[in-house]
């Protein structure tokens, strides 16, 4: 019992410690593809460190929501990290506190507060980015629902630890049409939700074209650091859900000894690194869509998930 609590906390620490690294590696790889040297992969750590030591400026016109939001954005991925398999392929202490839908709601809570805070300050760019994020969000929501419900229906459970075992026992399940189509749909969702290139340009500095970034423009100092860190943790958590729950539980610790769990850490990082390579290929080979073409992109994701649902349900 005490073991499982410790492992659960190790999961949270891994998410907190390595999330900026993943972001740094992604930025570095993208620059390398464009034959530039790029910033160090540890740059996000330095940014966060620097921001923690700066003064915070808060607008006189904003309410308590603006001050609370960085903490909500920072804490929600940590809660999700307690629920999902990051390192082990057996349920840990908090695993049954909430299922995948619960995790989705907790992540959505962070997004909700970020939207409110963006509107709160009265900066014109904040509400614009917030309303765009909501547009992407409400188009992405039905896809999320269908993916989760179909996955849970096929695997017979909504607890991620049970779902992930379904895809590899027996191994032929990995090739289930519902599984592969769902992976496609969820990959498109990750691109949309984390503001990657066909939907949003994460490295753009032009406020009028921003979707995701403009929500954090008003933050400075500690607030900005927490927002950045929280954002990268959200990406890490989504990667873990995608790779460990939906793709396959390969590389996760099976044994209950501390050594097994510690060995799983580099394995997971390698897995995420491979996923980042795929992401870099996608981001470097596609152009950003115009705002009103995003509906087409997410419509394609929706139809993919519906096809997965139909084939999955009738195939059983």
């Amino acid at each position, binding site marked *: 019992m005490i073991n499982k609590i410790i492992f659960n906390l190790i999961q949270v620490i891994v998410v907190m410690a390595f999330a900026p690294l993943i972001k740094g590696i992604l930025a570095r790889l993208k620059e390398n593809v464009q034959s530039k040297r790029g910033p160090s992969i540890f740059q996000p750590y330095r940014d966060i460190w620097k921001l923690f030591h700066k003064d915070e400026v808060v607008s006189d016109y904003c309410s308590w929501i603006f001050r609370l939001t960085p903490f909500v954005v920072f804490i929600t991925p940590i809660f999700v990290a307690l629920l999902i398999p990051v390192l082990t392929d057996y349920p840990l202490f908090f695993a049954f506190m909430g299922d995948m839908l619960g995790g989705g709601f907790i992540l959505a809570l962070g997004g909700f507060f970020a939207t409110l805070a963006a509107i709160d300050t009265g900066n014109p760019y904040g509400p614009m980015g917030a309303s765009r994020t909501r547009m992407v969000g409400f188009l992405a929501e039905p896809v999320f629902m269908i993916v989760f419900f179909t996955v849970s229906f096929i695997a017979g459970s909504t607890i991620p630890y049970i779902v992930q075992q379904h895809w590899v026992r027996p191994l*032929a399940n990995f090739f*289930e*049409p519902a599984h*592969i189509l769902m992976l496609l749909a969820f990959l498109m969702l990750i691109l949309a939700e984390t503001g990657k290139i066909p939907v949003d340009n994460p490295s753009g500095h032009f406020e009028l074209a921003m979707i995701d970034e403009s929500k954090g423009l008003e933050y400075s100092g500690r607030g900005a650091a927490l927002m950045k860190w929280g954002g990268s943790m959200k990406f890490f958590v989504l990667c873990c859900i995608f790779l460990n729950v939906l793709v396959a539980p390969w590389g996760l610790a099976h044994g209950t000894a501390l050594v097994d769990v510690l060995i799983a850490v580099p394995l997971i990082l390698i897995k995420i690194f491979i996923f980042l390579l795929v992401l870099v290929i996608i981001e470097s080979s596609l152009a950003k869509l115009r705002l009103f073409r995003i509906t087409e992109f997410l*419509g*394609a994701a*929706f139809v993919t998930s519906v*096809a997965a649902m139909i084939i999955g349900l*009738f195939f059983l």
Partner: protein
Amino acid sequence: MNESELLFSLLTKLNALTGGLFLLCAFGLVAIRQMLTCLRLYIFQSLLLAVSAVLLGYHYASIHLFVVAALTIITKVFLIPWVLRQSVGYDSFSKREISQALNIPTTLLLSAAITIFAYYLAGPLLTAAGAGIFEKVNLPIGMASLLIGAYTVTVRGEAVPQLLGILAMENGAFFAGISIAPSLPLIAELAAAFYVLITVLVIGLLAMRIHTIIAKTAVGKLIALKEE
């Protein structure tokens, strides 16, 4: 689970996966703007048809289906794209199409509805025939692809995507056919393959004529007849 059962389950799942991707290609043919991408999707869809034929041929130990796969690859992956490029000309392909009767999200949602309708149609047929697991995948997906192909022809305003819609209908019919009639006489398949080739040639030449006369292939705009 012994080895043959495992192989069977792997075969069925691979076939179902092929079916899923086949359906996605049909969706893509309705919704994607670039004509060159549409043509590539059609080639990919034909490849998937060949893969499904090989999987079914392996299961039924039927030489016919392997021949179908070979014919599909020769005609649909190599000959048809070549004939189409020769007859229509490259500059029609390099364009982006914008004339579409409905906008793209609506089109996609309607095609999803068509898919559900195809399953609804195929359901009673499958239960009445006591179908096996391959028919359960191939028949509804083939029917869906057929209906979506017909829908493509109605909704798109350009000659080449309309032609690809007709070809997708044919692909869908074959996809359903290889599962419900795995031992169809070879002559029928040969005839179908040549039939499709001639169709492509004729429609391609027609599209080229339209292109040379009015400098575009947006047949959706050709509502009023005009005498010279």
